[in-house]
């Protein structure tokens, strides 16, 4: 059953067309990679799905209902959560409060002792057990990413958008990160991840969509897409194709 459908989605910033007539469908439970060279429109696509940017034309539907006319808070309530390319912690809050902020304002809100227990579980799931009271501004980069993921998961999303969540991690952290997303995938959540780390894409994604200069270049099983000549040309130039 299709969870997310993009139909002819276009985003223009003045004279620049960042996303051009993009269409694809995600089936519930899939983990799909959204790939492409820098500037190909991946983050813009994610921003339109989460409601951060309005679409210029086309439409986006979740579970068959159009969401591209809604603001981010209503899209969040319909089950879309995300992380950001540049981690967006809430620095003046503690780690626990960062997650509480997601629990308290989701569609089925949690507050008080119920929320406390849930925060413990969520933080333990991402490897931050016992760190509730720490100030978010004191966390290391990988821990900030873990916290941001816990915050996204706290909204109990149907669709999780990860924007280069694995970028900037050292090899050990990367392994831990891939394991973490693998566990999420096994829990049945649908994941769309923008990623440049190809090892992670191969390990996690059954299917990949490749974008180039705002348009969809390829869409199919990961191994086929990564071997596709037009994809290699887009990434590495004619000499390598």
């Amino acid at each position, binding site marked *: 059953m299709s969870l997310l459908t993009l139909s002819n989605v276009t985003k223009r910033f003045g004279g620049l067309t960042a996303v051009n007539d993009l269409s694809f469908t995600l089936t519930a439970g899939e983990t799909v990679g959204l790939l492409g060279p820098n500037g190909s429109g991946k983050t813009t696509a994610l921003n339109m799905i*989460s*409601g*951060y940017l309005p679409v210029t034309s086309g439409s986006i539907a979740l579970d068959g209902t159009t969401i591209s006319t809604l*603001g*981010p*808070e209503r899209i*969040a*309530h319909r089950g879309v*959560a*995300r992380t*950001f390319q540049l981690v*967006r912690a*809430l*620095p*003046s*809050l503690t780690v626990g*409060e960062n997650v*509480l*902020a*997601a629990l*308290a*304002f*989701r*569609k089925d*809100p949690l*507050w008080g002792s119920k929320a406390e227990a849930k925060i413990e579980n969520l933080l333990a799931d991402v490897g931050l057990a016992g760190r509730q009271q720490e100030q978010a501004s004191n966390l290391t980069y990988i821990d900030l990413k873990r916290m941001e993921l816990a*915050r996204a998961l706290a*909204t109990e999303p149907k669709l999780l958008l990860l924007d280069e969540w694995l970028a900037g991690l050292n090899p050990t952290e990367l392994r831990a990160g891939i394991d973490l997303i693998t566990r999420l995938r096994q829990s049945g959540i649908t994941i769309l991840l923008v990623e440049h780390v190809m090892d992670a894409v191969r390990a996690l994604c059954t299917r990949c969509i490749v974008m180039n200069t705002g348009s969809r270049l390829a869409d199919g099983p990961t191994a086929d897409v990564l071997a596709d000549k037009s994809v290699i040309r887009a990434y590495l130039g004619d000499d390598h194709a």
Partner: protein
Amino acid sequence: MIFLIPLLALAALAAVPFFVGAYPLGLGIGILGYGVLATAWALFSGPTRYISLATVAFFGIGAYTVAVLADLMPYPLVLLCAALIGLVVALLVGLATLRLAGIYFVIFTFGLAELARQLVTYYEVNVTRTLGRYVFLPIGPEHIYWQLLGLLAVTLALAFWISRAKIGLALRVIGDDPVVASHLGIGITRTKLALFSLSAVVMTLAGAIQAPRWTYIEPSIVFNPTVSFLTVIMALLGGPNRLFGPLLGAVPLFLLFEWLSANFPNHYSIILGLLFIAIVFLLPNGVLAAWDKLTARFKNNEARA
């Protein structure tokens, strides 16, 4: 025990008018008035970091409402009307402006206060054909003191409750990162509007309660922009994100300004400006936060030694 200390403090403060003369009581009213304004200002501006200079717009609306309606209805009803007018203005202004951020919001709120002053002046000059108004109400300074003390207690209780409630968390999230707030399902405009309006109603009441004290009011008195600046500087000095921070800033600064305006009336504004700059540079989060930082550093040094 936790509730006993504030109640005892409140009782002690309520007894002050029985023991002091007219001048100290006047100082008490001034301190309470600014304590209310600074605490109300911090309700909204503390967590969101939206610097509002509209304080005096609501303060003046409160005072003018009393001047206009005092002869027409009983005093409690006048206060209720003032609160409602403050609420309606805050909702209208909030809906129009709370999408603004940073410097645009600051400038807009400053402009709003001036607009309120000019509109009232225009109306008085062209419609009622008299600029000032007299407020003759049988309300003595001790009653004004008690009303302000009550308003301060209610405002502090509200601030305490908000800091522990969901709406308080929502405001802090918005203050930290509005993009994250919206992606977590927080209705940003709704939340900001609620707190902006609540804060404005308290400010309006502070102006309304103090109106009988002046006997004669006119726009240049009750819409004086210095009130907005003083409120900001007081809240910043004490710390806008602490419950008692704004009040702590209001006490010494009110006394200082009182002394300055009596002794250096010509240099008052210059000193006020310099003090404003010094506080923003040296104590950006207020005295209480600076004190916490200092004690934390002291403890760390001790732990290392």
